[in-house]
């Protein structure tokens, strides 16, 4: 497997080639010997790359690694191999996982929604549950009305099929 990083819009692969006697990594197709040495202060360290020492500062914030090295500032994002993949049910439909009644409708046909937006509130077995949009998109049809009862598996809200990208 490879790791992928994003630096200034470029997707850079990093591979670990060897660990002994020193760590060797391939960055963007070039091999480097790498050693990580402690820095003088919290947030500081020294990276020895092919024998050359790079004192640097780094901090992880907001899903990115911010670095200062060689008088320059960098912001790097590490790709999560699981990101981007929906992993959900991949469908356009919000179906009832249990029988119940609609207690609130929070969307209407044609409305754009973001992933995680509450679309409908249902009540089942004395518990209210908000069903959220599985992805960003546009509501195609709301199949139920307020106070309507439904059975398990009933289609509640459908999103427009995603455009092929």
């Amino acid at each position: 497997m490879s790791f992928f990083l994003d630096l200034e819009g470029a997707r850079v692969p990093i591979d670990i080639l060897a660990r002994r006697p020193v760590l060797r990594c391939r960055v963007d197709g070039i091999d480097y010997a790498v050693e990580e040495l402690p820095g003088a202060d919290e947030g500081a360290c020294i990276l020895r790359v092919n024998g050359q020492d790079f004192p640097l500062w780094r901090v992880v914030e907001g899903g990115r690694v911010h670095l200062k090295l060689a008088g320059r500032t960098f912001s790097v994002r590490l790709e999560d191999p699981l990101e981007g993949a929906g992993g959900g049910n991949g469908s356009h439909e919000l179906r009832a996982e249990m029988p119940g009644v609609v207690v609130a409708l929070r969307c209407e046909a044609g409305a754009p929604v973001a992933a995680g937006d509450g679309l409908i509130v249902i009540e089942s077995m004395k518990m209210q549950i908000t069903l959220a949009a599985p992805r960003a998109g546009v509501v195609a049809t709301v199949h139920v009305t307020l106070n309507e009862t439904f059975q398990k598996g009933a289609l509640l809200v459908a999103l427009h099929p995603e455009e092929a990208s």
Partner: protein
Amino acid sequence: MAITHILIANRGEIACRIQRTARRLGLQTTAVYHFADRAAPHVLAADHAIELQAEIPTAAYLDVAQLIAAARATGADAIHPGYGFLAENAGFAAAVEAAGLCFIGPQAEIIALMGDKLRAREFAARHGVPVAPSCTQTGDLETFLREAADVGFPLLIKAAAGGGGKGMSIVREPGELAERALTAAAEAQRYFADGRVYAERYIEQPRHIEVQILGDSHGEVIHLYERECSVQRRFQKVLEESPAPRLDGALRDQICNAAVTLARAAGYRNAGTVEFILAPDGCFYFLEMNTRLQVEHPVTEFVTGRDLVEAQIRIANGERLGWAQSGIRIEGHAIECRICAERPEEDFRPATGTVALLREPRLPATRFESGIREGQAVTAAFDSMLAKLVCHGATREEAIARSLEALDALVLLGVETNVDYLARLLRHPAFAAGELHTGFIETHAASLVPVSLAAEARAAALLAAALTDDAFRRMVHDIPEPYASMGAWRN
């Protein structure tokens, strides 16, 4: 009655800056803040802190009634407005005085006079301070266009009531004039609720030279020499320095004397700045007067060895300043870098984030003035300026070198900033040569982009980033033997 307790009607670095002098003079301070700033340094360092209620954070610092109430609540007897917010609001100055408090700044009527660009310009012309050929819209747009064309091209069109670059545009061809004037008028109307526009001869490659003046309530007015603020982006200053490089001594005296003439004519009291446009031919024209402490005041403080905030407080106290003009001397050279949360590569678009790691440069003859601390969120709610880095040197070269050293030593991570860009500006040969003008950044845009990095340094940055990742670290350190020693062996 002497000032004992100052409410600082501001935030960020300038609030901290004023507190420092106040503390040194043995005065109490009251900080005001919006909820969003509740843990900001200016709040934590003050003797008293009062939260201002407002839906929008900036609105809090513009709420005159709450500010005066806050001063009353903590017993403050003076208000320092800093810069921005209410600093040049004549109504505020008047309200403060009306509340029986001391306003640390000029008289309300002078703020009003200088705040109106057209009146200020007329005032300057009337008192023999040179102004650029111009015309002002008095009647309909048709007449204005005819008169404007007579001034000659290129022309600068701007809002009569405005500042800060809003509604400003350069017209090079007569054919463009009508359309640009209409656009400027519309913008002027939108931003300043005053649609009048104004045209003046546009000076190619002008320099922005401003003069620091101080006037006391005893009629004494002096200048503390000039500052060069030509390096600008989007009409906002980026680098400021004092003295101005490559400025002939006689011309310097003429400019400084013109500034004193204007301030004296206005009966100016407290600190102020007279801004001029300096043409390549040596002609200079009055631009405007800022009736407040400037962002870039520390460069003047460095070269003159004077504390301008102290001067402001003493003047507001009614004291005689007692600084003879002949005693004000420039020693060495100082440069200020404005550190902003922005993306220079994307036309200086403001950036947001969090100050996740902050290590201030600790170097001699260096002032790092900030109102930020680690963990602080940088939002779009306030101005993008996070801090100022001001360095002094015996010569301009030394000041540049020290500034570069300080920029290198400064660690401000977690939000994108212009720190790297500032270093590129300071290293630029045209900057080193002092070949400055307000179009410097546009002219040299192509040579101010980041140079491509050595492959090792780039790899070091990427690997250092990867090594913060738990999954990556585990892949590096947690592979047992003999697997770890074999590498990617295949049989």
